């Protein structure tokens, strides 16, 4: 059974490695700030006890005050998983660091989040629309579209 790791325990480990990164943590997920996202993700990938080498899913959610990007990380060797989140409070020009250098699977998923939600991923090698065409006005999955 894949054990879902407790967010609070992981939050303590993250805080030791990069203090001030964690915004909130509960049993299910850990929320980190946008600026420290890359450092935290690198720490989660490279620590041997955690060893998150598989990014299963990347989803973007539009809560009307802020955007939230949810990452589901899995470790194949230890068979445990973690939910990592980050929030972006700027509704017009949301920017989140890209994790494509750590996990290449983020490539298409980040392009899709840009296409449908409008979140720009800073550092992505090829950020352009994936599912809709160039010249489409708007980002359909936002709550205020249509």
């Amino acid at each position, binding site marked *: 059974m894949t054990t879902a790791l407790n967010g609070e325990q992981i939050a303590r480990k993250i805080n030791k490695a990069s203090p001030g990164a964690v915004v909130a943590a509960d049993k299910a997920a850990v929320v980190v700030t946008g600026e420290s996202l890359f450092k935290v993700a690198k720490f989660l990938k490279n620590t041997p006890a955690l060893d998150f080498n598989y990014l299963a899913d990347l989803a973007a959610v539009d809560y009307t005050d802020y955007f939230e990007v949810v990452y589901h990380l899995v470790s194949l060797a230890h068979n445990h998983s973690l939910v990592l989140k980050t929030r972006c409070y700027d509704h017009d020009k949301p920017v989140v660091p890209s994790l494509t250098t750590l996990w290449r699977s983020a490539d298409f998923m980040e392009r899709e989040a840009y296409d449908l939600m409008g979140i720009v991923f800073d550092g992505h090698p*090829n950020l352009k629309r994936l599912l809709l065409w160039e010249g489409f006005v708007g980002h359909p999955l936002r709550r205020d579209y249509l």
Partner: protein
Amino acid sequence: MEVDKYHIPPPNELDVAEGLRINSLMAASRNPIPDPDSWIDEEIQRNVLVTSVDYVVDWARSRSLFPLMFGLACCAFEMIGMATSRFDISRFGMDIFRWSPRQADLMIVAGTLTWKMAPAVKLVYEQMAEPKWVIAMGQCCISGGPFRESYSVVPGINRIIPVDVYVPGCPPRPEGLIYGITKLHQKIVKESISKA
């Protein structure tokens, strides 16, 4: 510093050209194209000599249609199922599915049509040589189907190309599609060569 980081790279010129094509097609396709119904007029004004020549030519045309494989989504697998040995359309003379539009005269559009794909459908339709017919297979081609309310689905392919026979179903059974093809045969038999 946030404003500096919000940098979207300039788009590729091929992508921009494609986008312009799609947007202009969207703007031009507000109303559905009327279904071809010239066969109704001809029936009223038939004369005997043209009828027998017409009859032979149309019979030959209808019994040797070459379908074009244009499966887009789920309905494509029922179309392929129709071509396999259980339902077998080679008994109607439609043995080989052509891959090239230049060699086909029947286009069976099967599956959901999105605005992004619409210029390609129009291009393939225009590449087919006259006389040509179109069958709209499945709900998505007739009216947009379960996805009609979506922002990227064409509400029926008759916005883009004229359609001869509509086959409803989601997906229609292969027997349903064969019934649609026999209806098309009846329609072709009523056409006059002076029109084409």
